[in-house]
């Protein structure tokens, strides 16, 4: 069946598969469950006035936490941009034993509770373990330190770039690469000029998703980061601290910053995803 032709001829059927009351029900569910809490969060953040908002957001602890979240998430995005693409390539183009295992491992971060993931990292790199002790001896700490944060983020966001790139890679027409080869292009040049352009939006979309997910990550970091203020305190944990300290307005204010960043990224990611999936009808 020609999917493209079907899309072009898509007329609006008079056969409505869901009557009006279903639409109303769905809207009510989403309105209550999603809009109400988010709106109240935002309102709380600005309730005490612009001065208090600025004070909460520019407090040294907040700024440090936001900065830490940002640069660790950037690192995670870039590293997983590469690794994710490489893994997608291996999954799509190679015929090796162990491929299924890799595919399963890539999906593992989606299935496993983030807290448990954090605990596993501590179990591997914690100060009482062989590996952890060895690294500590050489002046390098993973658990309860910044490298641990990056490691946790790398684990948790592993699937995103892979899942974004895999379908696009799978849909590339091999005839294009063959044409390039017959025209005299070498392997690297073919990669750069023929393969990379179509998959690049997908990689970018995956990286944006990775970044958005990373700044919001909590569970694994609660276990791994050690929560030392100004050093290993990420934004979500800082927000938790403010809540526990009885400062919900400040917590809400910093939340608004994170939310604003995430919301600003969403249309960007959607745009990239559309560009990436453009080949599919």
């Amino acid at each position: 069946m020609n999917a493209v032709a079907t899309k072009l001829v898509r007329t609006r059927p008079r056969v409505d598969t869901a009557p009006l009351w279903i639409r109303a029900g769905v809207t009510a569910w989403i309105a209550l469950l999603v809009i109400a809490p988010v709106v109240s969060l935002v309102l709380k953040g600005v309730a005490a006035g612009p001065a208090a908002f600025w004070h909460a957001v520019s407090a040294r602890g907040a700024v440090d936490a936001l900065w830490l979240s940002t640069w660790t998430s950037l690192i995670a995005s870039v590293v997983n941009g590469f690794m994710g693409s490489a893994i997608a390539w291996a999954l799509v183009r190679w015929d090796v034993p162990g491929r299924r295992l890799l595919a399963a491992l890539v999906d593992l971060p989606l299935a496993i509770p983030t807290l448990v993931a954090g605990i596993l990292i501590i179990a591997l790199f914690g100060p009482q373990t062989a590996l952890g002790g060895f690294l500590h001896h050489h002046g390098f700490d993973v658990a309860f330190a910044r490298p641990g944060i990056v490691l946790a983020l790398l684990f948790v966001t592993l699937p995103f770039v892979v899942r974004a790139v895999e379908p696009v890679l799978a849909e590339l027409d091999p005839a294009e690469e063959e044409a390039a080869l017959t025209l005299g292009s070498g392997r690297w040049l073919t990669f750069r000029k023929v393969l990379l352009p179509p998959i690049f939006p997908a990689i970018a979309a995956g990286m944006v998703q990775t970044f958005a997910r990373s700044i919001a990550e909590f569970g694994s970091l609660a276990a791994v980061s050690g929560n030392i203020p100004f050093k290993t305190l990420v934004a979500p944990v800082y927000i938790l601290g403010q809540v526990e300290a009885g400062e919900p307005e400040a917590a809400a204010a910093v939340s608004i910053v994170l939310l604003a960043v995430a919301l600003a990224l969403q249309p960007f990611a959607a745009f990239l995803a559309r560009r990436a999936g453009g080949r599919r009808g």
Partner: protein
Amino acid sequence: MVEAKRRVPDAQAKLVFGGIVAYLSVLLLVPLAALVLAVVRHFGDVVEQLTSGEAFHAMGLTLVVAAICITLNGVFGIAGALVLVRQRFFGRRFLDALVDLPLALSPVMTGLAFLILFGRSGALRPVVDLLGFSVAFAWPGVLLATLFVTLPFTLREVALVLEEVGDHEEQAAATLGASAWQTFRRVTLPNIYSGLSIGTTLTLARALGEFGAVLVVGGGIANKTETATTFIHTAVEERQEPAAFGMALILAAAAIALLLFLQNRKAKV
């Protein structure tokens, strides 16, 4: 469309590939093994601490909340997917964006939002007071927060399948005299089954693993709002390692089971 042929990679690439797989397996298998060993070593303590009333309550609450999330977000997921994919109306794009909103929020923020909404001066506090239950620091809060974070999964997976399958079969059913319900039950539902099972698996995994939101809105109060995850958190803070390891192992095992099921479902698609 012709798929690119899979190449058997040369020896060098095979080495790299093998290295990646080995590395990841070690990253996961070794700590899992360590976890299993720890549990085995303190087996008696683990059993004792996990069979306490508090542990049972935590597991029970987690399971009940997960079941409710699967059911409610399953129904609303199917309905929502049908509405968003098959209908055109003013505000559809907005509704579509709202469905993704839970994915943009950090779990802590989710918990905070519900605390505010149902807290002392919250907008919906009078409503729940009237209905006679509390949300903040009570199990309904845990439920609501989990419903929030699991909202998108079933909906998105079902929407994906609906888009692929198209509505021609439903049109055919209409010309053959089927009512809307008959069409839904006999034509639409079987076709979205694959999306439904993947979505349900993802929902369950997320519900079991939710931590930040339930910690904030529930407070992790033993025998009241403690879930499996906050149980672990509390256990670590109170230096009750056997309990923490035991519960972590249970969750890890459940996650792996779900993962295998997910892989199986995806292979069938």
